[in-house]
C-alpha cells in the first residue's frame, strides 16, 4: 500500500501545474478569447481525449496520469478540456470501440476539436430505469433506416448537432428478448422529420429536451456496431466510467463552500459553525467524500492490477446521490427563510445560489440510474441475491 506517486507521475503532475500557472489566469483576468486559446492549448498537449489511443488523435495516457490530470484540473477549477462533453464522455469511446474506420475519421477529430455538440438518446417516455424496454423503432429501407418514435431527457439536445441513439430494429414487443434487436445509430439532428422540444426543470433551466422522430432517414453507414447489437454498445459505454476522482474533488470543493458559509453565518448571535449538529453533519459529509476518494483509489488499484471489478462503482454512485441530495439541502436547512429565497427574491442569501442548489440534485441523482437501481445492482451482481 502506498499513497505516494512515482517520480514520473510527480513529474507529470508538475507539468500540469506549470501549464495551469501559465495558461489559467484568474477568472477576472480572462479575456474574450481565453476559452478559444485554452481549448487550443490543451488540444496541443493531447490532454483532450487523454486516455484515447494516439492513432485516433487521443493522448494514449495511462489511468494514473489521467487521475492526476483530473485532480489538478479539478483542484484549480479549470474549464473543461473540450466543450463537446457528451462526445468526450460517451460517444467518442463508443465510436473508438465499435465504429468503422470511416466513422472514426469523420467524428473523432471533431469531438477532440470541440467542433460541435453531441447528445445521447437512451430514455423514452415510458422507459426509465428499464432501458432495454425502449420502443423507438427504425425499419430498414434499402441503405437507410427510417426512425419513428421519441427520446426524452436528452441533455444538451437543444444545442447539439448530432445524437448517438438506440433504436429497436427487431424483437418488437417481446419482453423476454428485449435486449436483442436494439441498434445504435448516429443521427444528424438537422435531418428532416426531427423536432426538438426543450423541457424546463424545476429550477427553471432548459437543459433537457424531448426529441420526436417522424420518418427520419438515416444512412446505414451511420450505424454504430452491428444491427441488433446496440445493447452491447451501451453496456460498454456505461462500463467505460472510470473512478470518480474528478467528482470527489468537486464534492470537496462544495464541502469547502459549506464550511465557509457556516463560518460567516450567525444565528441568534452565534456562528453556525459552533452549532454541534452543524459540525457533526459537515464532518459526516467529509467522511463520505473521503470514503468515495479512497474507494475510488482502491478500485483503481484493482483495475491497474488487471483484477476485474464487478459493479463496485455503484458504491460511489450511491454515495454521490446521497451527498447531492443532502449537501444540496443542507445549506437551506440551516439558513432559515433567507436561505430558501432564490435569485432576485427578497432577502436571498448569496443571491439565491443555495436555494438553486437545493433544486439542482435530481438530474445527477436520477440521471445516473436511480439509487434503487444501484442498490439492486449491488445486491444482485455483488451479493448474488435473487433478482426482483
Amino acid at each position, binding site marked *: 500500500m502506498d499513497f505516494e506517486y512515482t517520480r514520473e507521475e510527480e513529474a507529470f503532475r508538475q507539468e500540469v501545474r506549470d501549464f495551469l500557472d501559465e495558461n489559467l489566469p484568474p477568472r477576472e483576468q480572462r479575456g474574450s478569447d481565453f476559452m478559444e486559446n485554452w481549448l487550443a492549448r490543451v488540444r496541443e498537449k493531447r490532454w483532450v481525449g487523454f486516455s484515447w489511443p494516439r492513432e485516433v488523435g487521443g493522448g494514449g495516457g495511462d489511468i494514473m496520469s489521467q487521475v492526476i490530470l483530473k485532480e489538478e484540473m479539478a483542484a484549480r477549477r479549470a474549464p473543461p478540456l473540450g466543450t463537446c462533453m457528451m462526445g468526450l464522455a460517451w460517444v467518442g469511446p463508443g465510436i473508438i470501440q465499435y465504429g468503422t474506420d470511416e466513422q472514426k475519421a469523420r467524428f473523432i477529430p471533431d469531438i477532440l476539436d470541440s467542433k460541435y455538440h453531441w447528445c445521447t438518446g437512451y430514455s423514452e417516455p415510458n422507459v426509465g430505469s428499464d432501458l432495454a424496454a425502449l420502443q423507438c423503432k427504425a425499419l430498414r429501407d434499402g441503405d437507410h433506416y427510417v426512425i419513428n418514435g421519441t427520446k426524452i431527457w436528452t441533455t444538451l439536445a437543444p444545442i447539439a448537432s448530432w445524437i448517438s441513439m438506440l433504436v429497436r430494429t427487431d424483437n418488437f414487443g417481446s419482453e423476454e428478448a428485449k435486449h436483442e434487436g436494439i441498434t445504435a445509430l448516429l443521427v444528424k439532428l438537422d435531418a428532416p422529420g426531427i423536432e426538438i422540444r426543450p423541457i424546463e426543470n424545476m429550477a427553471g433551466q432548459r437543459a433537457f429536451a424531448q426529441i420526436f422522430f417522424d420518418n427520419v432517414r438515416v444512412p446505414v453507414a451511420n450505424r454504430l456496431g452491428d444491427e441488433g447489437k446496440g445493447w452491447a454498445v451501451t453496456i460498454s459505454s456505461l462500463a467505460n466510467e472510470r473512478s470518480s476522482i474528478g467528482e470527489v474533488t468537486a464534492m470537496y470543493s462544495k464541502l469547502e463552500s459549506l464550511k465557509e458559509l457556516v463560518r460567516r453565518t450567525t444565528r441568534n448571535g452565534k456562528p453556525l459553525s459552533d452549532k454541534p449538529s452543524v459540525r457533526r453533519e459537515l464532518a459526516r459529509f467529509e467522511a463520505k467524500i473521503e470514503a468515495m476518494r479512497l474507494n475510488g483509489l482502491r478500485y483503481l488499484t484493482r483495475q491497474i492490477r488487471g483484477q476485474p471489478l464487478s459493479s463496485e462503482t455503484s458504491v460511489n454512485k450511491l454515495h454521490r446521490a446521497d451527498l447531492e441530495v443532502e449537501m444540496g439541502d443542507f445549506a437551506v436547512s440551516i439558513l432559515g427563510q433567507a436561505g430558501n*429565497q432564490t435569485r432576485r427574491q*427578497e432577502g436571498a442569501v448569496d443571491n439565491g445560489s443555495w436555494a438553486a442548489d437545493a*433544486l439542482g440534485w*435530481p438530474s445527477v441523482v436520477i440521471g445516473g440510474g436511480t439509487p434503487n437501481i444501484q442498490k439492486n445492482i449491488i445486491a444482485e451482481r455483488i451479493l448474488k441475491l435473487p433478482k426482483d
Partner: protein
Amino acid sequence: MNFGFTEEQELLREQVRKFLEERCPTSTVRSIMNSDAGYSSEHWSQMAALGWLGLMIDESHEGVGLGWIDLIVVLEEMGRSLCPTPFVSHCLTASTLCELGNEEQKKTCLPGLASGDTIGTIAVLDIPDDPIADNLTLQASADPGGIILTGTKPFVTDAGSADLFLVAYRHANKPGLAIVRRQDDGVSASSTATMDLTKRTGTLTLENVKVPAAQLIPMTEAQLIRLLDKGVVAVTAEMVGAAEAIIEMTTSYARERIQFGHPIGKYQGVKHRLAEMYVDVESFKSLAYFAAWCVDEDPDQLPRAASLAKAYASDAFAQMGIDGVQLHGAIGFTQEYDIQLYLKRSKWARPMFGDADYHYERVAALTL
C-alpha cells in the same frame, strides 16, 4: 373523549375541497403563482362570500365565530391544493385582534377583515427565524398620544398584498402590537415570491410612523409567544394537506408507471417508502390536530403540542418533498409536472415559525 371532527366540520371540509378543486386546479395555481399579485382577488371575494375570511371573527363583528379546529380543516385543504392566497396571514391577524384588541379596535378592524375588504398580516420578528421573544427587537420611541416606529421587519408574509399590519414592537420594556395601515405615512411594503412561488414574503419598512395610542395593543411576552404558536399551528395544518397530496400523487404514479414489466409500486423500495410517508403524515396530522385543539381549549398545553407537531412535520415533510420527486424519476423534476411544487412548499414550510431543531429543543427545554 372524541378526537374527530363534527359533521359540520366535515361539511366545511367538503365545501372547501370542492371549491378548490373547481376554482383552483393546478393550472389556476400556476397562473396565479406567476402573476405579480401572487393571489387572485376573485378567489378572495369568493372566500369572503363563503365566510372563510371571517371564520375566526365573532358574529358581533360580522364574522362566523368558529374556532381553530374549524380553521385547520380549511388550512389542510388549502395546503393540499397549494392555493396561493394571503389566507394564513389574514387569519392570524383576525385571530390576534379578536383575542387581544379592545372593543373599539375590533369594531374598526374586524368587519373589514371579515368582508375581505381589508387584507391583514402580522409583522412580528425583527430577527428571523426562531420564534422567540428575543427576536422581537423593534424599539418604539415615545410620542405625545402614541408612539413612533422606525425600522424594518424582514420576511413579512404577504407584505405586498396586505392593507393592515399588526406590527410588534417594544416600548418601556414591554412588547405590544401596533395596528398600521399600508396608507399610513412612512409605511412601505412590497413582497416577492419565495422559492415556493405560491407563497409571498417581503420587508415592511417603517419610517417615522406615528401610531396613536388608540391603535396600540398591549401584550405580554406569553401572548407574543401564543401569537407565534398560532402561526406554528396554521403552517403545520397546511403541511398536513400538502403532504397528503404528495402521497396521493406518488401512490397513483407508482400504481401506473411500469418498469421491468411491473408497476413500480410493486417493488418494496417504492412501496415501503410510501408506507413510511403514510406513517409520518398520520402522525403529524394527529399532533397538528391536537395542537389546534389546544389553541382554544387548553392554552397551557399549546407550547409543547405546537412544537411537537411542527418539529415532526418539518423533518418528515421536507424528506417527503425530496422523495416524492425522486420516486417520480425524471418526470418529477420537470416544471410542468406538479410534484415539484410540493417539494418547494416543503422547503418553504420548514423554517416558518421555527424549524425542527428549534422546536425539538423547545420540547426538551419544557420537558427534560
